[in-house]
């Protein structure tokens, strides 16, 4: 199985552990990735907040490059890239006038022949839970995982949705296949505060704090995420939330792919467990899933 691959800027920077773990997990499942040539940033929120055409044009550059490489799909990991590329691609595919205008702007001849996929749907629907289960070497037995989907992964217009709006289950299914115990909790799609750190730091502490607190109250050992911004907000502001709430939280925030890498017993540089601020090693060692010595 082969997919076009769009890593995205965050995965080249602060979300590197997401890229390393996702690539290693896919390789372990026999999936081949071909990086989209000279891909550009999706523009994230700043592009669509300030321009109607820019987010579509940025999507078009990646889609056109993939089409030229003969790729039929682009696999994304970051929820924001996924949302932007999928939306832009869909707009072009359904509006010939827009496609023509964008082609002129970006100096390309894109025909709309590429499908944008998210890693979670690829793992569940293309590779399949059985294949994933078969690859597990160290089942995550006894590990209670709260899967946090945030906003961008699921909140798409009807025809673009890959999972339920209010109660998505893709990551839960993956965690169960890896032997973990997904927690049934109500804050799967609550907002983490996104980029509001700048305008309203206290809003981010309030929102991310309530997500972590709910995960803890529902019995979670760990939070699994699929977005670099969610990861940063839930992990980085946890100590601020703890002071605000006056209680200890201590819930590590890992990408779901890092947990799959642990279950697959992949190398330490695929698991990247030393990147978080809330240390995941104690709980993982307690469940006998890792030997801490490897990371010292």
């Amino acid at each position: 199985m082969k997919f076009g691959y769009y890593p995205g800027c965050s995965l080249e920077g602060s979300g590197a552990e997401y890229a390393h773990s996702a690539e290693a997990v896919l390789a372990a499942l026999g999936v081949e990735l071909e990086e989209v040539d000279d891909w550009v940033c999706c523009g994230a929120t700043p592009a669509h907040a300030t321009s109607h055409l820019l987010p579509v044009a940025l999507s078009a550059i990646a889609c056109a490059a993939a089409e030229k490489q003969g790729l039929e799909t682009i696999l994304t990991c970051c929820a924001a890239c996924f949302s932007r590329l999928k939306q832009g691609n869909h707009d072009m595919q359904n509006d010939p006038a827009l496609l023509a205008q964008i082609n002129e702007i970006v100096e390309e001849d894109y025909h709309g022949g590429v499908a944008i996929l998210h890693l979670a749907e690829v793992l569940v629907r293309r590779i399949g839970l059985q294949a994933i289960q078969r690859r597990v070497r160290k089942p995550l037995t006894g590990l209670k995982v709260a899967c946090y989907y945030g906003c961008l992964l699921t909140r798409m217009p009807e025809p673009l949705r890959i999972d339920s709006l209010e109660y998505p289950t893709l990551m839960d299914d993956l965690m169960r296949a890896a032997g973990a115990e997904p927690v049934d909790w109500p804050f799967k799609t609550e907002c983490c505060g996104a980029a509001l750190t700048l305008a309203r730091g206290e809003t981010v502490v309030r929102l991310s704090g309530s997500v972590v607190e709910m995960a803890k109250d529902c019995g979670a050992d760990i939070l699994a995420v699929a977005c670099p911004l969610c990861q940063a907000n839930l992990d980085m502001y946890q100590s601020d939330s703890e002071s605000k709430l006056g209680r200890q939280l201590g819930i590590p925030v890992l990408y779901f792919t890092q947990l799959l890498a642990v279950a697959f017993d992949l190398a330490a540089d695929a698991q990247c467990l030393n990147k978080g601020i809330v240390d995941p090693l104690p709980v993982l060692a307690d469940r006998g899933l890792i030997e801490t010595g490897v990371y010292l």
Partner: protein
Amino acid sequence: MKHQLAGKAFHSEFLAAVEKHCEQEISACYQCGKCSAGCPVFEDMAIAPNRVIRMVQLGLKEDALKNEMIWCCAGCSACTCRCPIGIDLARMMDTLRQMATHDGVPMPPDGARVFTFFQAFLDSVREFGRLSEVALMGSYNINSGRIMTNVVKAPWFLLKGKVGIIPHKIKRTDRLKRVFRRIEEIEGS
């Protein structure tokens, strides 16, 4: 919160202009408030998202374009996904931000900070084709005169190798600059 209408200017053409720009039937909103009930940032705002819609319906252009809500909107789309009649409110927020910028409407302090961040982000994309997190923090801090809150956490980021120091640069930056320029010409900003 009571909204004082006396002495306000009503712009009858404003509603139609917003509807055309965001391709949404804003006039159909019947003020059920479901969008605001699920909005994560509303609790910290003086004006709820459904009030912003009401301002547009009434043609209260100044109020709709200069409030903090349009800038503090996180773009989470909870409102859009829950509106019983399918109004894409998140898209209307994009439209209002774009109109406010285009018309040079004075921004509330929160809005100015968010806008400076958007600019710094897009400057990095325009320059490198990719977002450089270090360049972003640097240029945001210079342009806003305010240290990015995240920088307080920066030692952690650097220590853990969380922020890429060297910006990745794409090959076809010339083409990308032309793309940005063309869009600016079309959208007239």
